């Protein structure tokens, strides 16, 4: 199988997920990396260690990611090279342009892939229901596009591929214009520095109940953080969000209260030294990453914890 993995970079850094795409590519067959940008030499060198071949697409107009230009140059390359499988990172960037590219390639697409099986055609595995259920999807025709979840293909082989200039330039003027990157605002509390984090999810139910978590955090000498819905609802400030679009934390203790454990949240806290999760749903995916789990109503457990910590 001829596989093309599109690398990703931002702020001058190669996204390590690009190597994971090549791990999967090497598993499936001939591995080709594609790297797009203004000056991509150093990324190509890094990618060549894991690919049979690296294709460079360079142009000043490609300095910042633009989906229309990425799709245009990729289509030019793929029309010539005829891949069977195109791999793209399931990131803010990849997940954005991959479905559009798939349509233009007349290719089926599966997003957020965590497993691939070729025993009987091409079958891609992914989660549905925010991690509660898994599905194997049979892909009906080739070529196909897969966006791949970070961490799913960590192991792979080393190669020493050759680097070629694809000789491709954008053939369209993009309608969408890049303006700038906007940095996150700095808040009062830096949750990435805390040793103990009491994290609350939608299970906390209401803004008024945040004080319960605050009290517990105080008793433990920690800080309160939250999952995305808690921040979206305005119950905690934006800089307290843990997850891919929030912060990555590695405290000594992560106490997760009423958090389901969606992948986007887990990516921000899975490396915590000790994870204890309280959730009333025994099937909640958070129990897959927690060291200790309590299947219960958090409103029954937290007051008991507080009483005991205060020595009552």
């Amino acid at each position, binding site marked *: 199988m001829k596989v093309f993995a599109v690398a990703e970079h931002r702020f001058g850094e190669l996204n390590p997920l690009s190597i994971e795409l090549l791990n999967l590519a090497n598993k499936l067959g001939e591995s080709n990396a594609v790297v797009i940008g203004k000056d991509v030499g150093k990324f190509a060198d890094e990618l060549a260690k894991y690919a049979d071949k690296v294709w460079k697409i360079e142009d000043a107009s490609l300095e910042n990611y633009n989906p229309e230009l990425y799709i245009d140059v990729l289509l030019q390359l793929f029309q010539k090279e005829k891949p069977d499988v195109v791999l793209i990172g399931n990131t803010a960037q990849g997940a954005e342009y991959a*479905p559009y590219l798939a349509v233009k390639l007349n290719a089926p697409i599966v997003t957020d892939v965590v497993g691939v099986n070729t025993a009987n055609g091409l079958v891609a595995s992914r989660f549905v229901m925010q991690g509660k259920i898994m599905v194997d999807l049979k892909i009906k025709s080739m070529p196909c596009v897969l966006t791949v979840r970070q961490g799913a293909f960590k192991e792979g082989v080393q190669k020493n591929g050759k680097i070629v200039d694809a000789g491709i330039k954008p053939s369209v003027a993009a309608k969408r214009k890049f303006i700038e990157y*906007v940095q*996150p605002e700095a808040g009062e509390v830096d949750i990435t520095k805390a040793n103990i984090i009491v994290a609350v999810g*939608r299970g906390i139910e209401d803004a008024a109940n945040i004080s319960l978590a605050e009290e517990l955090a105080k008793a*433990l000498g920690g800080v309160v953080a939250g999952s995305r819905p808690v921040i979206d609802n305005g119950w905690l400030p934006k800089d307290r969000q843990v997850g891919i679009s929030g912060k990555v934390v590695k405290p000594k203790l992560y106490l997760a209260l009423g958090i389901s454990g969606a992948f986007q949240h887990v990516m921000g806290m899975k490396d915590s030294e000790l994870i204890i999760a309280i959730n009333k749903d025994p099937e909640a995916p958070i129990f897959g990453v927690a060291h200790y789990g309590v299947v219960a109503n958090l409103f029954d457990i937290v007051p008991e914890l507080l009483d005991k910590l205060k020595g009552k």
Partner: protein
Amino acid sequence: MKIIVLAKHAPDPQSEVGVAGDGKSLSLGTAVFDINDWDRYAVEEAIRIKEKMGGEVVVVGVGKSEDTLRKCLAMGADRAIKIPFDAGLDAYQTAEVICEAIKNEKFDMIFAGLMSQDYNNSQVGVILAAMLNLPFATAVTSLEIGNGVVKVKREIEGGYQEAVQLPMPCLLTIQSGINEPRYVSVMGIKKAKTKELKEVSITPKMSTVEVAKMYLPPVKKAELITGDPSQIATKIIAILKDRGLIG
């Protein structure tokens, strides 16, 4: 400003869900259905724009979507189109029927939720943009309209945003938290009853993926702490003391 919004009637993943007897579909016996969370933000954003600038908001639902479409009308959307076809996990099919249903509408923008809370595909909006050859942006967290263009911030990793500008017509997928969706008022519900909810039957031609198997994921399970609340609290505190996390 005419805005088309895609709204899915979807089961809440928090409710009890499992795999049906056929091993290929979800069992949703007691699941609670409501408007897909991301679409709620999309509908709200469209209605706010209409309230400010005038125009029309048209909501489109695919599959069993009547309750959700009525809710959108009660929030303030002007009319609704229902396409009673269940595409399952094949987002191409969903996009194809929507494309067919709206092809004669002269819209300025299409809003879709960033993803659906049940299948988590994040595909329908962008596939539709491709079918209609529209400029697009995903994971939009704020937007500002001026002179035929829309300036948006879209979310990228690590708390960063990317600011981009698009001409209209265009398609945006909306990220949660962009606004605070309103509650549906009694007045709104009354008004909604008089609004148009048109049903159009369309069957897609294409089929790109097929469910081979659905199953519960094999997970490494946490060590469970059991007992009554007081016993559980005592055990947790013992673990924390043991690790030197508390005195």
